[in-house]
């Protein structure tokens, strides 16, 4: 028995993690959608889903059931086999990318030494799901949407890749685990060392996941729903799942590389150790809010559901607090790294996604040529300059013995100056073009 466990151990842990991810991700995606709808409603002076469950808490489940039961329509003229396979490619690839991500020090499927590159590379395959889906639908809207999408993904992958290279220069490794370890050693998250790089990655990642203001491929008002136009029911849901998984993936990359992964803010400073209690407190506050709302629910069953949610949150708070309360050395106390790491990681991912959504509710959509201009004439040059700047800072720091602050401060200012110049030049060119256009 013992030998069996020993034999299975290296396979078992990743397997469990993988199963957890595959099983939980659709649910998480559903609740991200709910969160998005609720946030959107809040910003738009309305309530959002309120009917299914208290405050719409069960809406994602209802949606999933509806989508599963919907008729699966395949257009007559479509290339059936490819039409079937395309959404599967999208989903598989998006989930595969999760494999190398370290959600807390305990929860990781595989710590590859090409970690981040693996995530990027596998993510790049997702484009086939989109392109093939759009092509096989045999519709102008789908095809245009797919082509736009492909062009957009390829363009912004360049900028995102170069931004990541900047971060990797700082880390000196590709393994996700070691990247976070390096940030712990430095005592500073890379966002503070390379803010421009983070900015570039943030913009490019929005574009890569086809989110507003870069959601041209599915620009509802222009191309109906882009490559998804002809899809319905479960296949459509798969595309949706892929999109939200991709959002989680890019948020995780940004968290890992720039936001310190599972590290608590001020992880190295003893004076800030009280932050360890924050997770439990946060859960308790949410739980308190749930209980406060319970009597106001109209129906018994809704009250029960909301109370259950509150209890769940209290349970989570207890789990998060337990390692802090028991004396060090026991197994429970050791679990702190894993549990709190996962909490902070997910919190950062959540905040990143929140910014995504915030931007979506605020901005109009770019036009395709404007999008390409922004990508190729601003972000790509800037990301190259950013890499050079970080390289310069590292040389100044390591070989010339400058301090962290002057070295990175100087290069950041330089990079920002280049950014300003690029923006100014772009503006000028745009104006000239407008004048020429008027004359012509």
């Amino acid at each position: 028995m013992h030998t069996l466990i020993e034999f299975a151990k290296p396979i078992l842990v990743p397997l469990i993690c993988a199963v957890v991810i595959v099983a939980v991700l659709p649910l998480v995606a559903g609740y991200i959608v709910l969160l998005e709808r609720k946030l959107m409603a809040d910003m738009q002076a309305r309530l959002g889903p309120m009917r299914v469950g208290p405050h719409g808490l069960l809406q994602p489940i209802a949606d999933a059931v509806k989508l599963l039961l919907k008729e699966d329509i395949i257009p007559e003229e479509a290339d059936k086999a490819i039409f079937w396979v395309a959404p599967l490619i999208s989903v598989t690839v998006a989930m595969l990318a999760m494999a190398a991500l370290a959600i807390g020090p305990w929860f990781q499927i595989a710590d590859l030494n090409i970690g981040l590159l693996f995530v990027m590379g596998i993510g790049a395959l997702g484009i086939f799901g989109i392109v093939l889906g759009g092509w096989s639908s045999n519709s102008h809207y789908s095809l245009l949407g797919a082509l736009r999408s492909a062009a957009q993904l390829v363009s912004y992958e360049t900028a995102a890749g170069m931004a990541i290279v900047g971060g990797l220069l700082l880390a000196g490794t590709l393994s996700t685990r070691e990247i976070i370890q390096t940030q712990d050693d430095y005592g500073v998250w890379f966002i503070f060392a390379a803010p421009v790089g983070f900015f570039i990655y943030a913009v490019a990642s929005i574009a890569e996941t086809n989110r507003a203001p870069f959601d041209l491929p599915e620009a509802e008002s222009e191309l109906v729903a882009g490559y998804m136009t002809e899809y319905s029911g479960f296949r459509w849901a798969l595309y949706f799942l892929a999109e939200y998984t991709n959002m989680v993936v890019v948020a995780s990359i940004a968290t890992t590389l720039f936001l310190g992964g599972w590290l608590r803010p001020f992880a190295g400073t003893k004076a800030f150790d009280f932050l360890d209690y924050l997770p439990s407190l946060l859960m308790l506050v949410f739980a308190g809010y749930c209980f406060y709302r319970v009597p106001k629910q109209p129906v018994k069953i809704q009250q029960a559901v909301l109370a259950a949610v509150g209890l769940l949150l209290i349970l989570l708070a207890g789990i998060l607090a337990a390692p802090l309360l028991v004396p060090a050395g026991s197994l429970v106390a050791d679990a702190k790294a894993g549990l709190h790491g996962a909490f902070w990681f997910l919190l950062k991912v959540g905040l990143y996604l929140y910014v995504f959504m915030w931007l979506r509710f605020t901005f109009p959509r770019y036009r395709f040529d404007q999008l390409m201009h922004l990508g190729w004439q601003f972000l790509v040059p800037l990301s190259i300059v950013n890499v050079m700047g970080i390289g310069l800072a590292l040389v100044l720091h390591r070989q010339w013995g400058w301090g962290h602050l002057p070295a990175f401060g100087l290069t950041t200012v330089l990079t920002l100056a280049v950014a300003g110049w690029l923006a100014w030049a772009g503006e000028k060119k745009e104006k000239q073009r407008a004048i020429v256009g008027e004359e012509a």
Partner: protein
Amino acid sequence: MADERIPFATRAESTVLGADEIILNMGPQHPSTHGVLRVKLRLDGEKVIGSECVIGYLHRGVEKIAEHRSYQQFAPYVDRMDYVAAVSNGLGYCEAVEKLLGTEAPLRARVIRTILTELQRIASHLFWLGTHALDIGALTPLFYCLREREEILKIYEKYCGARLTTHAFRIGGLQYEAYDEFEKDVERFCTPFDKRVDEYEALLTENRIWVGRTRGIGVLTAKEAIDYGASGPVIRASGVKWDIRKAMPYAAYDLYKFEIPTGQNGDTYDRYIVRLEEMRQSRLICLQAIENIPAGPIMGKVGKVLKPPPGEVYHAIEAPKGELGYYIVSDGTTQPYRVRIRPPSLINLEAFDKMIRGHLVADVVAVIGTLDIVLGEVDR
């Protein structure tokens, strides 16, 4: 518009690359053609090199119906043309028939008509702003705009019981006296409305993406605008100071002070600015009007059966979308011999091809949006 530029043979085998141009059919079922407009676009890649609007999907024969209804019976039908600005439609029709009869509504009726029509202008522009922004991809302004529009619709509901197709006016004046809290309600809406418009502006006016999407798009010079017979905000954005409220005052507009906002470039951005400014001006008119609503009757001396003397009349008002004209011919019976309506949406839509050529597919929705068309009015 209807020339034979596009042989609309669907080239099923035409591909994006193989043919120099592809033909894309937008609508009639398309989320951003504002109803059932169908636009056939001739594309070179993503560039529009020609377009044709196909209309008539919402044709209900409004003008023909008029010939078989008495003058009063026809009044509710005009509300169904521009259904987001039903009050303005009614005003134009009632005033046209009054002109035919040679009477005029009492002053009190005219002032209340002015207030309601200006509120309708605000409501129409709000709805336009929301949907236009939505077309360009900004989700949030729509809900802000609908929030304010709701207040106006509530005023209508209190006034006449209906929210959308109100049938608020009667030939000769008003059927309903303004309810007790009317002034207060209008004031409660108008006073903070200025800040609300600032809110929309904060979201859009200086927004780089919004400016990039609208500036220089769908340009219509002053001369072209006049040639196409455009009216309303479309012509004013091109720099022509043409507003029927000033040029040929009707209702009670001559009593109030207001500005005619104009633009210079005649592009989508200018039309946006002009409409926002118009909302502000309408608010000022309303505020001026509720200060002093004269007492008196609300209904002029009009008989139960209308028999206008034989003759013809053309009366135009400044509807939210432009010049809304009614041409009515009477043969002395209780039913009009002929009614011809000049819908601003249709006439403005004719400039569409001129405005869109050379732009990209994504600009099509921007230009359709900026024209502020309502298909019910285009097709009648």
